[in-house]
């Protein structure tokens, strides 16, 4: 294969994520506003917000400014690397660059960046945010791993393109795939860190937790990474669980993919607008229950169910 294609496709995916992520955030805000009987900001506001923050003074603060900067760059870089590994309306561009395990590592790395950010700030509140984030990660990250491993079990391969194509279902609609779908829907809100699972940055409790020392361009990049994260996770969810129609010819499949992502964003908005935040211990208990079910599904999958 011509080596230009993976690079071009990678660029296309990264560009799409960067361009569409603020739009999704804008939709999220607008719909939230409508639910709350408000007019809400213009749908393009997140773009302006990012531009505004990027243009502000770059202040060094916190315990370790260098690590703080590093955490932001790493966070956005990881999210954008993920973008290259996920098929978005056409086969994943960097298909050969890694396997499903790399995907799992990268997903975890995104969370690790938040931990680094919290440690870099070094204040009591950011450390509280860090400890909450860590607890949530330990309980939560295995869920996506289990989903991907179920795919690998079904297809007998860790290759990205085989795992990431609705592989949890294998052929037909097995029980384990459906269970996993339910688990993922129930935990999706936590992966994208929205209410009721925005525990690690709860503004009214611990004042944005890990992010509290961030401002200006660094905050812009972190926010950008979070917006992109919403899109990436939605994309992963779509490829893993609702792959139908993604395989259509280029512009059509691409459109179908992004339409599905948008629907997922709307779902996230709806849940976020109608719930109160859980406490960390309540959330962990909830995740633990889901994880038990997920492991059960993995067992079923290994027996071919």
């Amino acid at each position, binding site marked *: 294969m011509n080596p230009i294609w993976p690079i071009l496709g990678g660029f296309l995916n990264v560009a799409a994520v960067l361009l569409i992520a603020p739009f999704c955030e804008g939709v999220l805000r607008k719909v939230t506003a409508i639910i709350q009987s408000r007019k809400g900001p213009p749908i393009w506001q997140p773009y302006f917000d990012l531009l505004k923050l990027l243009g502000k003074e770059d202040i060094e603060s916190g315990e370790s400014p260098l690590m703080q900067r590093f955490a932001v760059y790493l966070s956005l870089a990881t999210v954008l690397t993920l973008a290259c590994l996920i098929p978005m309306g056409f086969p994943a561009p960097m298909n050969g660059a890694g396997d499903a395990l790399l995907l799992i590592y990268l997903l975890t790395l995104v969370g690790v960046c938040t931990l680094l950010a919290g440690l870099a700030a070094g204040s009591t509140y950011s450390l509280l945010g860090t400890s909450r984030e860590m607890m949530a990660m330990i309980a939560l990250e295995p869920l996506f791993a289990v989903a991907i491993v179920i795919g690998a079990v079904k297809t007998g391969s860790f290759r990205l393109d085989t795992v990431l194509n609705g592989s949890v279902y294998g052929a037909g609609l097995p029980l384990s795939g459906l269970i996993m779908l339910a688990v993922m829907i129930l935990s999706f809100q936590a992966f994208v860190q929205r209410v009721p699972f925005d525990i690690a940055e709860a503004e*009214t409790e*611990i004042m944005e937790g890990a992010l509290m020392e961030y401002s200006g361009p660094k905050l812009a990049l972190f926010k950008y990474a979070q917006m992109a994260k919403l899109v990436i996770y939605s994309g992963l969810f779509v490829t893993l669980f609702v792959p139908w129609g993604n395989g259509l010819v280029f512009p059509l499949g691409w459109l179908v993919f992004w339409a599905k992502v948008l629907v997922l964003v709307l779902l996230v908005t709806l849940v976020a*607008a109608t719930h*109160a935040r859980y406490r960390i211990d*309540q959330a962990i208990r909830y995740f633990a229950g889901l994880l038990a079910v997920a492991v059960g599904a993995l067992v079923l999958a290994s027996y071919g169910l």
Partner: protein
Amino acid sequence: MIAREKLNELRAKFGPAIQRADLPSDGRLFVFIEPSVVKDVCAHIFRDLDARYVISIGADDRPSSGKFMVAHNFAFDREHLLASVLTYLPAENPKLDSISDVVPAANWAEREIRDLVGIEPVGHRYLKRLVLPDGWPDGLHPLRKDFAWNQVPEGFDEDREFKFDEPPEGCTVVPFGPFHPTLDEPAHFRLYVEGEMVRGCEYRGFMVHRGIEKLAELVLTYNEIPLMAERICGICGCVHNVTYAQAVENAIALRPPPRAEYIRTIMLEIERLHSHLLWVGLACHIVGFDTLFMQSFRIREPVMWIAEKITGNRKTYALCVIGGVRWDIAPEMKAELRAVLDKLEAEWTPVVAAVLKDKNIQKRTRDVGVADRRLVKEMGLIGPVARAAGADMDCRRDHPYAAYDRVEFDVITADGADVWSRVVVRAKEVFESIKIIRQCLEKMEPGPLQAEIRDELPVGRLGMSSVEAPRGESHHFVITGENNRPRRWRVRAPTYQNLQGVPAMIKDQQLADMTISLGSIDPCFSCTDRLETIDLRTKAVKVWSQEELRILTRRAKT
């Protein structure tokens, strides 16, 4: 004559130690006693007679009697009686046995008397400063009469940092405040945290104490004080305005005309409506449920508009003068108010129904911030916090004032003693307020708005008034004085007592529950701080330092 009965009971038990007594009306009792028996009398009233502790007042009475005075106020809620136990102390080195052993709720009040009036509570277990900052020189007490209202003492080290207690072993300190997104006003909780569990805390507040009582004693006049009183609080200002006016009226035995009483009742209930709607919104915001926060603010807004139409202001209604009110409610305003109430009721009903069914909110609020009946009694907790613990008390019914004896309403109680019960109580009280306003509009007769006062107000009379604010009982104590102003005016806002219950409410629960527990008492501190100015022509930004602001405010005052 319930006041007479209580007095006879005290006389029978303490005999000659009861020096004299005043029974100005059936709902009030002032007993003057020997200083030596104060602790026993208070213990008897608080424990054996099961009265509720209200507040303690210290006063410098040297210009008139040559002595200091201390009053401990109690409320007999079931018997509709407010009682005050007073004692005089010598001018030299005044001290009095502390009652905080037997009445724990008196902890703050005694420390405040020690700070501001300089009366030493003998035997108090925690004699840390409460109101005065640590840098204030010893032996200077701002509420003494020989202390000028604008005096800044020599040697006042304003930048001295607070000296905090040592945290318990194994706990880290999480500073909560003075500035925090969920605190609308500065207050500092030093939380001792073990993991995510709060094991205890130290409170430092009074950072923006404005010395309003001192101003009232030396600068303002009787009818100017209500305007200052309503600026004590940005949410329940009208309560302080009315309570003060009623306390003075109580002292001079003056009754405002009926129409004024109805208008006071209506405005107080309008204030309760907007305050409760605000609180439900804020509580939802604290637990991250912003949709209900936005909705309750939308529903609340017309209440603010109608208040503005009646009084000219969304807040700070400037309602009362001694003996009456300033504003009338015109017939067309009545119709408009009724329409606002109808709309409010129609919109609030589904919200309450939805909230009461919501498992998600209950998960965050049930068994959180528990203040049980025992704590309510010991710390003198009041208002929705007490009612949510099943303590059936409400000054509107127990110590009727304004027109509350002529309207029918239910006192809402719950028995969970937790944040959830407080949500339920407040949500339902909105309907009772609507009911009360409707009855007032119905029963209000045309008539004068103010009672005529021909002579100077008599001097040296005592008066007290309790008003059920949205947060609980607001209590004012007044001694009338010369120069058209009171000799002493003591304000006890509901948060003063409720805040003392917070350390027990947040102990041994998760840090995440701290904000909603504190929020559930609907705390009301009070604010003003530094500012930043921008020169529009040169775009130069100047941040004012604490020192510069200090000079600026002092210059403006003198």
